[in-house]
């Protein structure tokens, strides 16, 4: 492993340790309620970017994967009383299968056709869940949290650390994809799919891999959400707001590098948490939408692009002296 690689893993270990440390010292539970949501959006934006950013396929179906994760957790709880870790694992597996399935069905389409097809899949899955009485149907289902697993004494603190671990997992996968042959192939797909296909890049297989990995992470992050809210209903589990948020955060941060979605999610989810508390949850969607439009029009490479522009200008000024 290279120096840069070990640096990343040391940083990741410190990040999880800091999250765990916070659960030991903080007396205020609100920190964990808000922090969980911010970490959740980092995972969603990072996962979305694996297909959307690297390959340029705009997935509107983040909510389908997220809702699938939520309802896998609900089903596992109601049917077997399964613990959180197995809920997450099964949800992740289900998400990977759905990703592969959606990919096989839709990845031969391009541009907007793919995007609309992903919305279609999410609505169809939502409709099936609405008509599935065992998991509560349209009116939803109440869930009781079991006791927290030691060493944690409160469930919300445990969820917070779980989310922190999932951030590390998501970023590690995104980083691996970006730096490997996978990422190079996906970038070739994004820049010119026909040229890539002609030069022997296995475009469909690459896109399917990206879609599967992305689905794996999105659904895994949906699972703990059931216990976080202690409630699940189709309208909120399959809310299109998850789709626009994941997409907006990735594009605002910048899609070229894994740090982009992390920064975008950190910035926007924190702002949203503050806005939801101080003004209203409608205003936070409005801010998200406006930021998205402003960035795609004015700063097409996101925060990363802005940073690079500033750095280049500084370098030019340095050279001129």
């Amino acid at each position, binding site marked *: 492993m290279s120096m840069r690689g070990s640096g990343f893993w040391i940083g990741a270990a410190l990040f999880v340790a800091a999250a765990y440390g916070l659960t030991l010292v903080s007396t205020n539970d609100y920190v964990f309620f808000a922090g969980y949501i911010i970490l959740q959006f980092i995972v969603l934006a990072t996962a979305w970017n694996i297909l959307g950013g690297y390959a340029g396929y705009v997935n509107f179906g983040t909510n389908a994967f997220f809702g699938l994760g939520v309802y896998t957790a609900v089903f596992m709880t109601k049917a077997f009383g399964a613990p959180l870790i197995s809920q997450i694992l099964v949800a992740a597996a289900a998400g990977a299968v759905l990703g592969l399935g959606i990919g096989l069905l839709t990845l031969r389409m391009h541009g*907007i056709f793919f995007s609309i097809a992903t919305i279609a899949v999410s609505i169809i899955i939502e409709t099936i869940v609405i008509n599935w009485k065992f998991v509560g149907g349209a009116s939803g289902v109440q869930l009781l949290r079991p006791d927290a697993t030691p060493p944690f004494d409160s469930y919300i603190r445990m969820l917070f650390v779980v989310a922190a671990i999932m951030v590390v997992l998501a970023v590690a996968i995104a980083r691996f994809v970006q730096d490997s042959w996978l990422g190079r192939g996906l970038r070739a797909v994004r820049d010119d799919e026909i040229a890539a296909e002609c030069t022997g890049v296995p475009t469909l297989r690459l896109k399917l891999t990206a879609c599967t990995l992305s689905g794996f992470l999105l659904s895994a992050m949906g699972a703990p959400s059931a216990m976080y809210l202690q409630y699940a209903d189709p309208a909120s589990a399959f809310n299109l707001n998850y789709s626009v948020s994941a997409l907006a955060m990735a594009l605002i941060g910048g899609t070229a590098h894994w740090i982009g979605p992390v920064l975008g999610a950190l910035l926007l989810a924190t702002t949203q948490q503050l806005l939801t508390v101080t003004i209203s949850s409608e205003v936070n969607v409005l801010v998200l939408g406006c930021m998205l439009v402003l960035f795609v029009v004015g700063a097409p490479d996101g925060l990363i692009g802005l940073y690079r522009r500033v750095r280049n200008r500084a370098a030019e000024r340095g050279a001129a002296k």
Partner: protein
Amino acid sequence: VFSLELLLDAVVLGLLLGCFYAAVSIGLSVSFGLLEVPHVAHPAFLVLAAYGTYFLGEYGIDPIVAGVLLAPVFFVLGLAMYRLYYETFERRGNDAGVRGIAFFFGIAFIIEVAIILMFGVDQRSVQASYIGKSIDILSLRIPMRLIVAFAVALILTLALTLYLSRTFTGRAIRAVAQDADALRLMGADPVATKQWAFGIATAVVAIAGALLIIVQPVEPTLDRSYIGRTFCVAVMAGLGSMSGTLLAGLILGVAESIVLTLYGASWAPAISFALLLGVLAVRPQGLFGR
């Protein structure tokens, strides 16, 4: 309980509804079908127009008159939208796909929230002499509002079809969709033509929005289910085909109405999306594909 009479009922209602679906989708058939703009915000504009109709209705203006009054406003809005889209995405060319789609997705959400902030999340409907009544034809009881929507939808669809096939500008619009460079060689400005067409498409959405609030009460997030319906119709039509739009609308209307009758309302939202996926998988060029 299934019966032939019930089925006939469903088919007749489906045909009326289908004409309405064609009317709400025909703007998209122009903007997305002919101009190839990834206009995901189309249904949001539709709901915006419905709320505009509601707003004017508070001052006692008839919904259809309100739709006609809104049309010029939406026309200008469409001109501005296309200009912004063209300058930022089409002209730069680079990676326009991802950002263009995200742009319209963002616009859709901004409209949705703006409606929530102005009108709240409650359902809204309008008053008119023909809303709430129904007429009996043979054994069928047909709501008057559906018949009014049907008639206006039919007029709107036919008018747009004639405009695109008979007038000089209309033919220019179809020409620019086929080959923008050839149009430039003829001395016409393809961008101005597309901008004009986008304006027309958006003006049509204003009238379709008035029909929407006549047919059903509206809420701010209604655009989400109309993403499925409008794109289903526009894609099934064969991108840009006006007569195809009418036929595709009828197919969707009848399919939804039959499923509604046989299995209940909770399955209805998935019909348009399932049809759309089916069309994309089996015949992506649509019924009347070029």
